[in-house]
């Protein structure tokens, strides 16, 4: 079972897709396999990450397991 990356907001436009199935692995290996231009955006200072719906703190090491969903969240604007 793969893991899943979810791209929100403008990151969906940059990725050209809303979701991407990836092989479970440490995050740095998953990102290294992506288009470098996309990887740079995903690692942007203002982009937060959430693993399975829970926000991660900065610099938290992420290892994706089977079925995990990792979301990349750019700055929000609602209302």
């Amino acid at each position, binding site marked *: 079972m793969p893991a899943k990356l*979810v791209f*929100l*907001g*403008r990151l*969906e*436009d940059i990725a050209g897709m809303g979701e991407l199935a990836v092989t479970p692995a440490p995050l740095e290996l998953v990102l290294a396999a992506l288009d470098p231009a996309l990887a740079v955006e995903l690692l942007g200072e203002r982009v937060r990450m*959430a693993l*399975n*719906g829970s*926000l991660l703190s900065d610099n938290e090491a992420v290892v994706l397991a089977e079925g995990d*969903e990792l*979301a990349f*969240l*750019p*700055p*929000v*604007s*609602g*209302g």
Partner: protein
Amino acid sequence: MAVSGPAVRLLGEDFSPTDELAAFTAAHPEAGGIVSFLGQVRCEGGVQAVEALELKHYAAMTLPGMEALAATTAKRWALDGLLIVHRFGVMRPGDPIVLVAAAARHRRDAFAAADFAMDHLKSQSWFWKREKTAAGWRWIEPRADDHRDLARWL
């Protein structure tokens, strides 16, 4: 005091703010005052005119986050009831985007609670907004004002 918890809804389709408010008011006859805020897609002319607005959400976090906000709001002020309705999807000028209503025995609690909930929906909830003008679609980033508004509550 409140017999029911806050009502929080995330909708993919148009809604009627007047119907929502009428139902909310009818459900809280004990409240001395009800404060509501309606956010809608601006209608304006010119090349900058917004033709459409789209709000994206993230199912795993958006509604749970709105529910947590409602719980925080309800805990901070003495409310009889709280309603939060927020759209996602594509909206046209004049369409409602967000409705917040707070019912309370005393008006100041209702004003403050609605204000607090709106500031947090605007810049702390999991929504991403883009607008379509004559120049095409453009993602909207939070404004410095939005962050200043939020800082009032710290």
